[in-house]
């Protein structure tokens, strides 16, 4: 630099050496901390998980006064990963074995992950979702689950009569069939738990045989279940809360969800929810068939389409695949 006339000093080997020692020292200290705590850093789920899963209003663990039952459970998956279960796939008598016990009995669950995906185990009294897991019954957590081949055991002591469920606590896996019942005491058996399965179900060609028992109430049967068009005045509403799974059970994701119109009549969807949605022709299982697609439209937005050819037009929301509806053009 022309205006810099100061004397030239040069780096020496010892200065470089000192700098390298400082750098290496930092790396070594950091590396020791890092590797010695490798698993600790991913050991805690986000606080929101506990909040979404429900309160911690469960009573303290009950005393063990009765028998001890040992139950072995394997996490297994169908080859296409669409159906998950314990011990055997649906249709097999070993599928999701029901545990019968009395108050005060203790069940020891020996679980192992015989599948290829990640799983974790817990017992809950809630009849849907992955929350409310009773402390002490967990084997691993959804945030740090059992890897393939890993296993573990846990205990469950029934404190009061009722129906409990042992589930895979990884979100979504219960809905895909990883749930079994624990019947404590003399309680009337409730309807089969596999009813919960079709919510997330997206049957692929070729697996229908395996899943026959649980696939039935998917899109088409739902359409038959309530065939009469409900007070359709040209506008289909996407009501508040349709962004949350569950509206499909009452067919209230699109209101009315099954509409008959004559060819050329304009149909309008109105997004009355707080989340953005799409109205996409097709089914969640097969994807868009290209007849119409709203793209993402925001809360308060509307989307209209005019269908000229008669036929059945199932449609769904690409963001929330449990939201399905149907249009019949006469």
């Amino acid at each position, binding site marked *: 630099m022309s205006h810099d006339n100061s004397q030239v000093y*040069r780096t020496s080997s010892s200065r470089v050496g000192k700098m390298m020692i400082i750098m290496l020292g930092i790396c070594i200290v950091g590396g020791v901390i890092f590797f010695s705590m490798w698993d600790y850093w991913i050991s805690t789920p*986000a606080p929101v998980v506990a909040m979404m899963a429900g309160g911690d209003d469960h009573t303290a663990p009950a005393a063990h006064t009765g028998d001890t039952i040992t139950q072995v459970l394997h996490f297994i998956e169908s080859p296409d990963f669409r159906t998950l279960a314990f011990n055997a796939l649906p249709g097999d008598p070993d599928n999701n074995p029901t545990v019968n016990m009395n108050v005060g009995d203790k069940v020891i669950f020996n679980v192992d992950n015989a599948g290829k995906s990640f799983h974790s185990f817990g017992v809950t009294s809630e009849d849907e979702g992955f929350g409310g897991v009773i402390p002490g019954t967990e084997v691993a957590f959804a945030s740090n689950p059992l890897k393939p081949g890993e296993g573990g055991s846990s205990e469950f002591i029934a404190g009061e009569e009722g129906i409990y469920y042992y589930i895979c606590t990884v979100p979504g896996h219960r809905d895909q069939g990883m749930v079994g019942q624990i019947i404590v005491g003399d309680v009337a058996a409730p309807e089969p738990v596999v009813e919960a399965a079709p919510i997330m179900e997206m049957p692929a060609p070729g697996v229908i045989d395996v899943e026959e028992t649980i696939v039935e109430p998917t899109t088409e049967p739902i359409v038959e279940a309530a065939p009469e068009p409900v007070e359709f005045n040209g506008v289909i509403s996407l009501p508040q809360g349709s962004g949350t799974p569950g509206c499909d059970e009452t067919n209230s994701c699109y209101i009315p969800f099954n509409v008959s119109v004559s060819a050329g009549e304009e149909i309008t969807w109105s997004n009355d929810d707080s989340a953005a949605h799409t109205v996409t022709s097709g089914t969640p299982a097969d994807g868009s068939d290209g007849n119409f697609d709203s793209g993402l439209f925001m809360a308060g937005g509307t989307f209209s389409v005019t269908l000229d050819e008669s036929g059945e037009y199932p449609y769904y929301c690409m963001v929330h695949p449990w939201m399905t509806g149907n249009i019949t053009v006469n």
Partner: protein
Amino acid sequence: MVLELQKPRPIWQIMFSTHHTDVGLLYLITSLAFLFLGGSLALAIRAELFLPGSQIIADSMTFNRIFTVHGTTLIFLFILPFASSVGNYFVPIMVRYKDMAYPKLNAIAFWMIPPAGALIWLGFADFTWYATPPYSIISAPGPAADMWIFGLKILGISSVLGAINFIVTILKCKHPDMSIGQVPLLAWSFLSSSLIILVAIPTFAAALLMLLTDRLGVSGFFNPAMGGDPIAYAHLFWFTFHPEVYVLVIPAIGMMYEIIPRFSRKPIYSHNSGIFAFVLLSIVGFSSWAHHMYATGMSFTEKTVFMVGTLAAVPASAMHVFNFIATMWNGRIKFSTPMMWAVGGIALFFSAGAGGVANAAMPLDFTTHDTYWVVGHFHLFVMGTIAFGSIGFLYYMFPYVTGRMYNETLGKVHFVMSFVGTVIVFFTQHVLGLYGMPRRIFDYPPIPEWIAMNQIATVGAMIIGVSMVIFLANMIYSSGKGKLANTEDPFGVGGKYYYPFEAKNPSH
């Protein structure tokens, strides 16, 4: 000029100094340390993908953690600090001021980087450098995820402080005899990238806070189960990080503007078009963010707007390339190591830009979206253009920093191996993407074409890895024992530093 040592002093005095060359040296060493740390993670990723199945990395979660930290490290802890290092060394000298405008702020901005780096590296989060919600909210395990969020928060503050410093130094502290149009292009590149940072970063800072409160459960901005919308995060994120790629690339182009006229022994072809292209790039950078999200169900109109906005960056980039080539044209070029890196960088900049046009075209994007094409495209920019410009400039400033010369032969070997390796890895990844291989995967089905191309890419990555070891050895050995540099003219190109406003280069 020896920048590090105004007078010999103990190392701790350099560490606690606020002088711009000392802070620049700290930035330099930190960024190089993270270059090698992040680069070794890249080699681990490539080694794992050499064959289908799981070989050296135990499970997919570890793999996710590795590529998350790889991306975060090289973008935020190598490229940005390296650019800050060059800016710290050269911007005050170029605007003829004694130091940065706010020396203490400058040192604070640097000292935010080591703790942020420690948070990112100790936690090793697993949700990609995009922090994909809703995964990052409801599934990503803590405390790693929270540490990553806080680390990025600190780095964002550091970037903003650095940007304020550069802007004030250039606009307010430049020599009164020098008009803003006479400020050298390297300093101009820092002015335009700093302006982008000031406008872009606050959006991501807000998004990070929203991510954190979502994780804590007090809000549900991006949590679909609480009525939130993950697409909103994509908009906030890319509104910051599409302009951010220009923050990364503009200083690298500025460094090439310093190297190319110097080794062509010719003044820059058009100083004003360089300034114009920098300003244009920093404006159009804000009109293109949603091109990352064509596949999220946007309307045709939105997609078209963002496609046009993205393509608007092409003329500005082409002006730079034209300027480089016109400068070299008819020059007496000396292909020393820095010049080789700069010219190689131009070639790869052009290739990456051509791929970028294909990406930006919305119909083609649906073919390449979330495939290895995107990985190849992005890395060709980051490695081929930005790292090439930066490493070339590191060779260029080496004699000024240490007073000694690096080994020229090893420098050229480093360049040739890196260039060949970069082409092998990232061109192959483009093709791999067209063959349908999705990005961010730990294992892949044994499709013969996929295996072959993954192996080619891994071999290329190993070539880069070996060249980087040569580079490290060269830097360490030469800074202590290299031959003494002639600091008036270390590269033997004749004349002194060429500055447009000085025009003192006797060679022409």
